[in-house]
């Protein structure tokens, strides 16, 4: 336990040296907090139709609406306060990103480690499937699956998982395959410890570093994919807009100069994704022994 903690503090000490990575981590934390407490800090509940008035729709930033407060970032075509809509949209985007990332991590890792451990036919079957999928662009896969399943949160997460589990499977497989050949696994099996115990207690922990990196990147990717699908009109229903949906709603008004409806949700989305990616980059560099001197 104490060995784990000291490793963690070493990791943090190295992480802390990269200032932009620390800043990115702070930004991610703040955005998660904003999403968690959206209900408390938003000036308006954007999902409560009784709160919305069409007289307030498409107003520029700084407009004082019929609610009696200032819309700092303006309002959208439905008359929602854009700042509130962004907080709530952030919540939905992060929710979906985390859910899709976690489910793909579980499914992908299980498949990858099983393939590496069992070998033979199972290995060939699983990894052929994974390779086949990896050669196919995720966006296309997600597009088709959403088109097949219809709209909704569960369907969307399903589509994202189907598009992304393969990355985890490949990574877990690569790491586990390397571990499989090592002596400590042979030794553990010779004691004999049960295969299940060896798999989950000994192999899995040694495969985690690359999986953490992939998970970070894939959560950012899920959020970005979800936004893209929503933008194309294939994501979530209009009643609970994610960031992508907010951007999409504003797109038709952009030509007439009402830029804020698309731009501010977009800025929130970009900050979130870029921050997650910077954190992921730093973690990857720290895990990569080849870049160490």
């Amino acid at each position, binding site marked *: 336990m104490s060995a784990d903690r000291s490793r963690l503090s070493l990791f943090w000490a190295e992480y802390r040296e990269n200032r932009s990575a620390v800043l990115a981590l702070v930004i991610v934390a703040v955005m998660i907090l904003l999403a968690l407490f959206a209900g408390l800090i938003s000036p308006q509940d954007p999902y409560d139709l009784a709160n919305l008035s069409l007289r307030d729709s498409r107003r520029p930033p700084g407009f004082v609406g019929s609610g009696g407060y200032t819309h700092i970032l303006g309002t959208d075509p439905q008359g929602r306060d854009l700042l509130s809509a962004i907080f709530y949209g952030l919540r939905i985007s992060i929710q979906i990103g985390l859910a899709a990332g976690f489910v793909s991590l579980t499914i992908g890792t299980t498949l990858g480690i099983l393939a590496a451990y069992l070998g033979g036919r199972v290995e060939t079957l699983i990894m052929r499937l994974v390779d086949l999928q990896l050669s196919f*662009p995720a966006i296309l896969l997600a*597009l*088709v699956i959403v088109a097949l399943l219809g709209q909704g949160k569960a369907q969307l997460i399903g589509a994202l998982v189907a598009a992304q589990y393969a990355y985890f499977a490949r990574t877990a497989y690569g790491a586990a395959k390397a571990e499989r050949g090592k002596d400590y696994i042979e030794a553990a099996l010779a004691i004999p410890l049960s295969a299940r115990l060896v798999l989950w207690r000994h192999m899995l922990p040694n495969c985690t570093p690359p999986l953490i990196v992939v998970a970070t990147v894939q959560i950012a990717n899920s959020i970005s994919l979800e936004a893209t699908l929503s933008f*194309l*009109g294939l994501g979530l229903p209009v009643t609970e807009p994610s960031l992508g949906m907010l951007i999409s709603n504003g797109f038709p008004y952009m030509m007439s100069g009402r830029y804020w409806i698309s731009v501010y949700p977009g800025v929130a989305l970009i900050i979130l994704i870029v921050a997650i*990616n910077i954190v992921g980059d730093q973690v990857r560099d720290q895990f990569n022994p080849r870049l160490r001197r």
Partner: protein
Amino acid sequence: MLGFIIQRFIQAVGVMAVMSVIVFFGVYAIGNPIDIVIPPDATQEIRLEAIRRLGLDQPLYQKYFTFVSNLLQGDLGRSFVYNMPVLELIGGRLPATLELVLISVICATVLGVSLGIYAGYRPDSWVSKTIMAVSVLGFSVPSFWVGLILILFFAVHLGWLPAGGRGDTVMIWGVAWSFPTLNGLSHIALPAINLALFKLAMMIRLARAGTREIMLTDTIKFARAAGLSEATILRRHLLKLISIPIITVFGLELGSTLAFAVVTETIFSWPGVGKLIIDSIAVLDRPVMVAYLILVAFLFVTINFVIDLVFALIDPRVRHGASA
């Protein structure tokens, strides 16, 4: 070598067969297209007649066999909505997409590899740091957002470039192309930049990572010791050594750019295949969806097959590994 080609070829055919089953059943298992095809006030007779004419009353497996036998004769069915052969429909849109994709990928590769080698060669200079920072942006910012910003800035704010459409085209070999005319080029500029940015970021990272690793190897040390100039080392040795992953990614990216063109074409109203497929998904025009997916799958399998062959030519280990 021949055995290797045959083995890969059989694999590719197998993959295509599996893909056709998945795509077909996936797409045909949902929704009822008959409601879209005929008006809601049609009589029962017209309805049944239409169902029979479109072959919607057959069991699923029978539809599949009809589909495959037609497919092998080059017939991908008729669009429910446009009432014309799907192949003709897609074929008519393909040049616009190909033009866009090729211009983007080639620009992205040439520029990306040059910048990436520089960033890998001098990792600590501020230019390299800027290049890498920009590439992180290009990597993480969703492409539809970049498209929006491009439109907002160049089309709405500055008014320099058109925000959508294809502009003037020139007929070459009976096909309309935009790139030979100035007006066409101005229309292609924004979507092409949009599409290229993501690939550019990827090429930069790939070339930089390769360069950083290879500059530390003995090959480069010996080349330096032999008194070769840095330019020669970069051109003759480094470029060759980093080319394998770049060729792979170039091939794969060609395919995935086609997929991403779906997003770009929608934003810029570019009349290509991607816009067609989005419209078809919205109205459940199944023959078009199936045909598009099969064609994309075919494209990917072909690209993978070609990459494998190129690999085998460049790297003898791949050849021998396969025959052993």
